[in-house]
Every structure is written in C-alpha cells, then in structure tokens.
C-alpha cells in the first residue's frame, strides 16, 4: 500500500492575511499578496514601517502584518522622510494610489525624489479615484469616462494624463524607476521582481526607488474583472508604456 501526504505547493505568505474588503478582481489585493511574499522572502517583516495612503487601500495594514502610519492625503512621502531619518534601521514603504500620489501629493513625491530619500514607493495607478466614486484623476486616459467627465476626458479642458515615472526620470536623485502591471501572470511575477529590487535598493542604501503598478478598477470603470484587465493590457499600456526607466 502506498502512503501519500498532501503538501501545499505554494505556501501562503505569513505577512498577508487575506479576507480583504476590495471589490472582486481588484489589483490591490494581488499587490498586497506580492508585497507580503517579497517581505517574507527578504525576512524584513519586523523592520518594515508602511505608510498607508488615503484611498481604497487605507486599510492595508489590516491585511498586512506590518507596523505603519496612516498619513494625510498625499503626504505619505513627507511622513516616510521623517520616519526614515529618525529610524534609519527601519525599512520604509509608502503605498499610494494615483489620486494620492499624482494629484494631491505631486509636490511631496517630486521633492522626496529630488532629495533622494531612502525609501520605497509603491504607486498604484488605476486611472480613477476609486474610493470616492470614480472621479477623474490626473492619470485618467483621454476619452475615458469617469463620474466627473461623463463624456470622456478632453485635453482642452482637463489636460493630459500625467506620467509619473517619466516625470521623475528627469531628476538626478532616484535610483530605480519602473512601471509594471498586473494584467497576467507573467506581469504579476515581473511586478514581484520589481518590488523585490526596490526593497533591496533600500536595504543596501542606494536611494529612492519607485515602482508604478498599472492596476484596474472594475467597479468604477463599469467592467467585469476580465474586461478591466484587458483594458489595462490594450489601452493603458499605450499611454503608460511598461519598462524600466532608471536603474543605477
């Protein structure tokens, strides 16, 4: 008689607890899982201090077993600067959405990047304000419908989509800027590698690193999860090309 045993092939990360409040198919939960896996792999869970944003992921610390601070809207880089300067031994991550980082916190992120502060920014770009009900964000694509642009975004009235990685690439201080996405498994694994690299840059003391993650918002885009990832793959990557912008 053959005796067999069942072993989990993919052990779950200890840091990520699941049971999130996000909508079905939301990219935030996938990204939390990747962050948990990377932190477990590097073994830095007790040193991490995560600065939560305002937005859908305001409860991120409920699902990730880190220490952290919840900052005012857009001011996470300022808090992260203070935390990193006062506690240099800790690993500081800010987790920000596009309304948080690219709209109200543009000033903070540009100056933090220009000073070359030693922390890691995870920037989730889903092209709308998700939590407040789908208003237009600076990163909304031209022609994309949102609550405040019901006939689509016009460049004459609302301007053009803001490309944060390209903007920060004009500065001298950042060491690592990459734009990744989560629309299929290949890109999920690339995102994992990018997060790991950004955290290693901080552990080794190289400098400021930012990972921009193209994500979806099926509820506010009024699509099914599968359609929303197709939209990210076909439309968003034309405006926000994926790739490494800086790696030094």
């Amino acid at each position, binding site marked *: 008689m053959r005796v067999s045993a069942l*072993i*989990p*092939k*993919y052990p779950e990360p200890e840091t990520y607890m*699941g049971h*999130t409040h996000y909508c*079905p*198919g939301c990219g935030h939960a996938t990204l939390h899982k990747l962050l948990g896996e990377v932190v477990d792999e590097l073994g830095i869970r007790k040193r991490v201090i995560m600065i939560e944003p305002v937005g859908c992921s305001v409860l991120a610390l409920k699902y990730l077993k880190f220490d952290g601070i919840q900052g005012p809207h857009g001011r996470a880089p300022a808090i992260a600067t203070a935390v990193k300067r006062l506690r240099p031994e800790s690993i500081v991550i800010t987790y920000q959405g596009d309304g948080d980082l690219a709209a109200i916190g543009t000033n903070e992120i540009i100056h933090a990047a220009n000073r070359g502060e030693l922390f890691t920014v995870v920037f989730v770009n889903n092209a709308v304000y998700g939590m407040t009900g789908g208003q237009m964000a600076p990163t909304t694509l031209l022609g994309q419908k949102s609550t405040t642009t019901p006939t689509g975004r016009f460049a004459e009235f609302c301007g053009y989509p803001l490309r944060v990685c390209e903007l920060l690439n004009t500065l001298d201080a950042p060491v690592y800027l990459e734009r990744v996405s989560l629309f299929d498994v290949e890109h*999920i694994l690339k995102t994992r590698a990018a997060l790991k690299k950004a955290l290693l840059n901080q552990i080794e003391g190289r400098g400021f690193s930012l990972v921009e993650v193209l994500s979806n918002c099926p509820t506010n885009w009024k699509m099914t*999860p599968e359609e929303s990832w197709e939209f990210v793959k076909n439309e968003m990557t034309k405006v926000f090309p994926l790739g490494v912008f800086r790696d030094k």
Partner: protein
Amino acid sequence: MPQRRIHLVRTLSYQVEILEDRCKGCQLCIKVCPRHLLKLSQHANEKGYLVVEWQYSKTLGCIGCGLCYQICPEQAIRIYAEVER
C-alpha cells in the same frame, strides 16, 4: 523555506482547494487554467458571491502550474501536492 524544495520529491498528483469564504467570484482563475478545470458554480457563499469550483480529473488533472494561485487576488486557492511518503 523548506517547503519550497517540493520539486525534489516525486509528485503523484495535485489537488486544488477553493476556500469558499474568501472567493469573490471574479473568475480570473477560470481564464488562466490551462486544463480548464475551474468553473463557476451555482451556489453562493455567505458574502453572496457565486464561488468557483474545481473538478477532479484523473486523466487530464491539475499539473500544479500555480497560475490560478498567482492570479487569485484573495488567496482563495490552495494547491496541494500529493507525494509519496
């Protein structure tokens, strides 16, 4: 992690468990499964979402590729390897 060394032992089969209290029925896993073993069931969990179910197949069964585990946002999928002891 010692459990990661699972590729060193011979695997008899793979079994998938869907945690129904976590599943939100987003159906991303149905699209990525190369063997088409996952499908949407007709019963709802306590949150009210129709959950995904996995069907066992002895001949064209799970190959343990982990695509559904990677794409699941909620970690509702667990893949177990059946090994000889």
